[in-house]
């Protein structure tokens, strides 16, 4: 070889390997910096959490899975776990599906029926949301549930497609594990239509997890397109004409809302709105009529779909709402269709004829201040949010059924211009309930009939704690429920209430859910007396103007007067009973009432004082804490809130051009809500003491035990700042208290979003090994939240929490970002699939039961998004303006119920949820994360919340001091926690643009005594939450972290090593080639 050529070769090889070496090191650096996330997705473990099991400090003895999902030797039984999940998912949907219509006993269908499925989603099922609460892994399809008896998981893997054009992907790569037997409906399905929809699936592509869209197209093929595939398709109807089942869907998702008028062109949406039916969907129903005399519609949604036409259509025999049923929920649907289970769900939201008729819809979507550019200096943060977005929630407390039922009540009573056509969509001459509402909140049919009667007088238990002044006021209603039909069934027992309203006084809903229970399975003729305990605080009203006499204003009041309680099949039925009891004109009513199902209680000051509920259950005086929520606080008189006194005159206008003029408002929006101190004397605040206590010793130690002070004093200020700053998925390690960095948190409320064989706690005796055939199972399999709500079954909600807790033990997760707990302000919120309901009591009870059940297995459920995430449009920092009454009675009450968890309090233990995630949104002008009124006054002081209160990802990192001051306990800095890396307070790019004009540093709060004390409190709450979780299973004095060699780490090590060797060798050969040349020259 020519010498120059050789030189060129060696130089080239050296350059090439220099590049591969550099690339390997870069790639390695990126992988290491994100190792936690990489491990989660690849099922690897970069570091293992090691503790020696000792007699003094035994491991895995605090929380263990139930024996049913373990083998005899205590190892995990994946088959049994999946079997249990299938069973629970099935029961959840069987109880949560809501039968809305069933004319001529069209349902149930007998086994062996020959059935035609119509609508492309009957073949390509919608199971979950595209992001957030996905249905992950292998599933049982509707066709399988109706006609087969064994899973085919290998060929039914759920796919997901994100919003805004994200590429679709399989939720698991493949399934080679067990298949499971199940009892299907036993129908024979029309194969012709299945084949047609399979072919049409090439054009109309659908996935099991799909998003909502701002311009929506349900992707339903036309009848002509069906005929184009098989012109003779109708011939098959003769053989499969016992029933025709049409599936109609409207998905939900994170990030994206439906928008008013946001429909794809040319689809003939019935009302020009995305939640109305398209012409192709209506044509599919017409096709069903041609096919069979029994037309059944399965409705999948997380919001009200405009189905008034179907309700009124005599040829549509049955409508069954089935939500987004998760991976196994179609079995529950099959149970209902074949009559194995009688439906017993109640609607989670009111279903209106026109969703746009809700007063909330006058102000939703994307609205911006007219002078944002001039006045808003704060940026959109690392997530690129748009500054200056807001929404005026002018509907006040009249959200969902509270609006429609209250206006109905006033229309019948002739009050407040309720019949005026203002706000009416069904008529131009009057507002009429029947025109506006299709199916009411809480409503649901059964295959049998039930009677309800109050058994005796309710018992009222009213007391006040002599020491704290905390009230305890409950009424217990005993309701005798009798199955007077022909088949066995369950039914919810819903107790509603009505407080006396005075025109011009505090706003009050004419009807509101107060609590609920569910019967056991009642055989025909059987009765059960169900006790429903009602917290009377929920019928009190928040009066923002009440003078507390101590310089503060605003508190809960209980006006003396006649209070009505009733039991009914939903809010409308219950209200009718009350109206009957009040002797209102039956001819003006929609439906009939039964006065015997209502109970009147005259409450006097002697019985319950007007201000009984001005003190919270913790004994804390309640007063206004969110004045800045109200636009009128800053710029009086610019917003008119809806009032019963004048429905027509105050029906919300659209406030889409608000201008900022008030300096305090502008200042708040710009984030200047906390003044960092630099010269405080902090010498009394102890950091870095050596008290000889370790974290593992804190299991079972009460929150207010002095031992916590000793532990916290051991932390250095920097360690505490680290714990506050780098939260989210991981616990930052703190040497002084013996904690090690640990991945601990995952997403979703419909299961844990971690594959079974990717446990974060692989040392657990029950951990599923990577070689387990079912190791690829993904536990996030359950239905979306509205299905859970619609069960109206607290025990089932609790069981779902328990099972998720069991999943958490198998996956090594001790904190769950879920369930979603915001209010369905309107039907267009894309996130409704993740939130339970429009009703705070239903939502709050569901979340409470879930959370307390999860804690049985050491899983801290952290509901989100606290609070006021009323829309996904501009969710990042949008300002929802509202009255404090609305904030407390509608938005916050669900959280209050869940956090107070009064049902589970004992004399020795104050039960409650131990975690939450804050909202991206503001409350009025102030970020929720930075609202001291929300996070400290209401959450901690009034409700007694103790636990892990994390921000949403990267939210408000520029407001570090204000967030700490508010009572939020840590930031979610996913991927920036220093996990396996070298991220420090100073080096993380997230915190380099603080509102104070400086970057975060370990000395930032050296001179701020308030923030140091707040930091101690935040860290205390964080560590306490960890200490009650199943994390303690694996902690003792020997706990440490050991690095492991993963395949991806080995790969980049090898690539770097080989590259380095070859590069050095090539360089050497290159140098030697000069030597050769010299020799030749000699």
């Amino acid at each position: 070889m020519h010498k120059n050529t050789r030189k060129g070769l060696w130089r080239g090889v050296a350059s090439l390997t220099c590049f591969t070496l550099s690339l390997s090191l870069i790639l390695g650096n990126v992988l290491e910096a994100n190792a936690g996330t990489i491990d989660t997705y690849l099922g690897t473990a970069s570091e293992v959490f090691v503790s020696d099991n000792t007699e003094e400090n035994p491991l895995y003895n605090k929380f263990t899975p139930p024996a049913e999902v373990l083998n005899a030797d205590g190892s995990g039984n994946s088959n049994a776990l999946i079997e249990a999940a299938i069973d629970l998912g099935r029961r959840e949907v069987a109880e949560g599906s809501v039968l809305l219509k069933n004319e001529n006993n069209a349902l149930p269908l007998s086994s062996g029926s020959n059935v035609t499925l119509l609508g492309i989603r009957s073949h390509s099922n919608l199971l979950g949301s595209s992001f957030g609460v996905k249905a992950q892994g292998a599933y049982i399809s509707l066709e399988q549930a109706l006609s087969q008896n064994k899973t085919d998981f290998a060929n039914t893997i759920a796919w997901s497609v994100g919003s805004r054009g994200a590429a679709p992907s399989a939720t698991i790569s493949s399934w080679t594990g067990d298949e499971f037997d199940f009892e299907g409906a036993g129908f024979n399905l029309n194969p012709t239509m299945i084949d047609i929809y399979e072919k049409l699936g090439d054009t109309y592509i659908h996935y099991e997890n799909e998003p909502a869209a701002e311009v929506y197209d349900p992707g339903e093929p036309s009848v002509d397109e069906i005929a184009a595939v098989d012109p003779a398709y109708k011939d098959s109807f003769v053989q499969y004409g016992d029933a025709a089942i049409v599936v109609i869907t409207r998905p939900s998702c994170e990030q994206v809302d439906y928008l008013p008028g946001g429909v794809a062109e040319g689809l003939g949406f019935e009302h020009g709105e995305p939640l109305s039916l398209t012409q192709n969907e209506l044509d599919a129903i017409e096709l069903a009529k041609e096919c069979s005399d029994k037309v059944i519609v399965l409705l999948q949604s997380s919001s009200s779909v405009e189905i008034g036409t179907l309700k009124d259509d005599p040829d549509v025999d049955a409508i069954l709402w089935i939500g987004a049923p998760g991976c196994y929920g179609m079995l529950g649907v099959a149970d209902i269709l074949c009559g194995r289970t009688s439906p017993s769900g109640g609607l989670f939201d009111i279903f209106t004829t026109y969703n746009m008729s809700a007063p909330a819809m006058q102000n939703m979507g994307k609205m911006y201040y007219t002078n944002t550019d001039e006045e808003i200096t704060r940026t959109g943060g690392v997530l690129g949010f748009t500054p200056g977005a807001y929404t005026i929630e002018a509907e006040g407390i009249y959200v969902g059924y509270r609006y429609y039922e209250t206006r109905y009540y006033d229309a019948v009573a002739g009050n407040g211009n309720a019949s005026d056509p203002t706000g009416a969509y069904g008529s131009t001459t009057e507002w009429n309930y029947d025109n506006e509402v299709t199916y009411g909140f809480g409503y649901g049919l059964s295959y049998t009939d039930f009677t309800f009667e109050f058994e005796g007088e309710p018992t009222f238990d009213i007391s006040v704690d002599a020491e704290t002044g905390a009230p305890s006021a409950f009424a217990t209603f005993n309701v005798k429920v009798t199955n007077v039909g022909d088949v066995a069934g369950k039914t919810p027992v819903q107790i509603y209430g009505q407080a006396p309203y005075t025109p011009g006084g505090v706003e009050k809903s004419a009807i509101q859910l107060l609590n609920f229970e569910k019967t056991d399975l009642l055989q025909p003729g059987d009765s059960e007396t169900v006790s429903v305990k009602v917290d009377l605080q929920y019928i009190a009203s928040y009066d923002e103007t009440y003078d507390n006499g101590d310089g503060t204003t605003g508190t809960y009041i209980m006006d003396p007067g006649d209070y009505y309680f009733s039991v009914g099949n939903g809010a409308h039925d219950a209200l009718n009973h009350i109206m009957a009891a009040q002797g209102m004109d039956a001819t003006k009513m929609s439906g009939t009432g039964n006065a015997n199902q209502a109970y009147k209680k005259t409450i006097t000051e002697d019985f319950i004082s007007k201000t009984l509920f001005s003190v919270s259950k913790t004994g804390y005086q309640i007063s206004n804490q969110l004045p800045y929520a109200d636009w009128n606080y800053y710029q009086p008189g610019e917003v008119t809130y809806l009032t019963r006194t004048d429905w027509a005159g105050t029906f919300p206008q659209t406030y889409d051009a608000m201008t900022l003029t008030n300096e305090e408002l502008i200042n708040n929006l710009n984030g200047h809500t906390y003044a960092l101190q630099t010269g405080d004397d902090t010498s009394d605040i102890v950091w870095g003491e050596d008290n000889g206590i370790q974290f593992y010793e804190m299991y079972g130690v009460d929150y207010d035990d002095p031992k916590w002070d000793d532990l916290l004093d051991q932390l250095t200020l920097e360690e505490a700042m680290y714990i506050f700053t780098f939260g989210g998925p991981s616990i930052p390690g703190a040497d002084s208290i013996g904690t090690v960095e640990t991945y601990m948190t995952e997403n979703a409320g419909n299961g844990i979003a971690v594959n079974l064989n990717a446990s974060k706690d692989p040392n657990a005796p029950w951990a599923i090994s990577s070689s387990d055939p079912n190791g690829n199972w993904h536990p996030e399999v359950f239905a979306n939240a509205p299905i859970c709500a619609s069960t109206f079954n607290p025990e089932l909600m609790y069981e779902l929490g328990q099972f998720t807790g069991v999943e958490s033990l198998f996956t090594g997760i001790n904190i769950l970002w879920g369930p979603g707990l915001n209010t369905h302000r309107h039907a267009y919120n894309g996130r409704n699939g993740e939130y339970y309901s429009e009703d705070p009591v239903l939502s709050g009870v569901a979340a409470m039961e879930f959370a307390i059940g999860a804690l049985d297995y050491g899983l801290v459920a952290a509901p989100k998004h606290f609070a006021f995430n009323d829309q996904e449009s501009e969710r990042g920092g949008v300002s929802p303006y509202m009255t404090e009454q609305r904030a407390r009675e509608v938005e916050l009450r669900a959280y209050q119920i869940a956090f107070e968890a009064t049902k589970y309090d004992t004399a020795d233990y104050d039960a409650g949820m131990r975690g939450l995630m804050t909202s991206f949104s503001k409350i009025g002008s102030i970020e929720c994360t930075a609202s001291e009124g929300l996070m400290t006054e209401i959450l901690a002081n009034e409700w007694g919340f103790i636990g892990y209160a994390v921000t949403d990802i990267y939210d408000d990192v520029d407001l570090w001091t204000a967030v700490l001051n508010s009572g939020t306990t840590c930031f979610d800095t996913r991927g920036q926690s220093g996990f396996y890396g070298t991220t420090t307070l100073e080096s993380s790019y997230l915190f380099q643009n603080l509102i104070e004009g400086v970057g975060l540093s370990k000395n930032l709060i050296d001179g701020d005594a308030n923030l140091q004390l707040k930091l101690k409190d935040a860290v205390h709450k964080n560590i306490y939450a960890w200490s009650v979780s199943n994390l303690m299973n694996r902690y003792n004095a020997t706990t440490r972290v050991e690095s492991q060699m993963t395949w991806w780490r080995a790969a980049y090590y090898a690539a770097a090593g080989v590259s380095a060797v070859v590069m050095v060798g090539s360089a050497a050969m290159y140098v030697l080639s000069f030597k050769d040349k010299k020799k030749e020259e000699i």
Partner: protein
Amino acid sequence: MKKQGIACYLNILAAILGIAGLILTVRSSTMSTDNALTNLSTLILAGVVGIVLVCVAIIVPNRLGNYDPISAISVLAAIALYAYLFGSCVSQRVMLIAGLFSFNAGNTVGWSIFYTCIGAWVCLLVGILFLVVGSFLKSVKEPMAA
């Protein structure tokens, strides 16, 4: 000046791509203060030095001939510096990109940063590729032997 070989032209292209990559990297850092690269000044220094070294590799062979050690070392160092610039930017953009493809697809500023970064990375990687290929080849054309 001698007659230039293919490596010289590849190195010139690599220098131009380096300049473009550096400019785009800086641009991606200044599009949003919240998404600024934490070590931008270091990255600029690395990029400038890398480009200068490529220039050295373009010029020096005219004096020292093909495959001279100075240009060889310059190219190696330039590759490492381009790679550092690329890698440092990638590692700081991982979470942004993860967000864009999941929960934060509506981040329009983020997408602009992403596309700018993609441009920068393509420039730098192609520049590295040219440097590697050029290393195998002659920078100057040698006179034919008599």
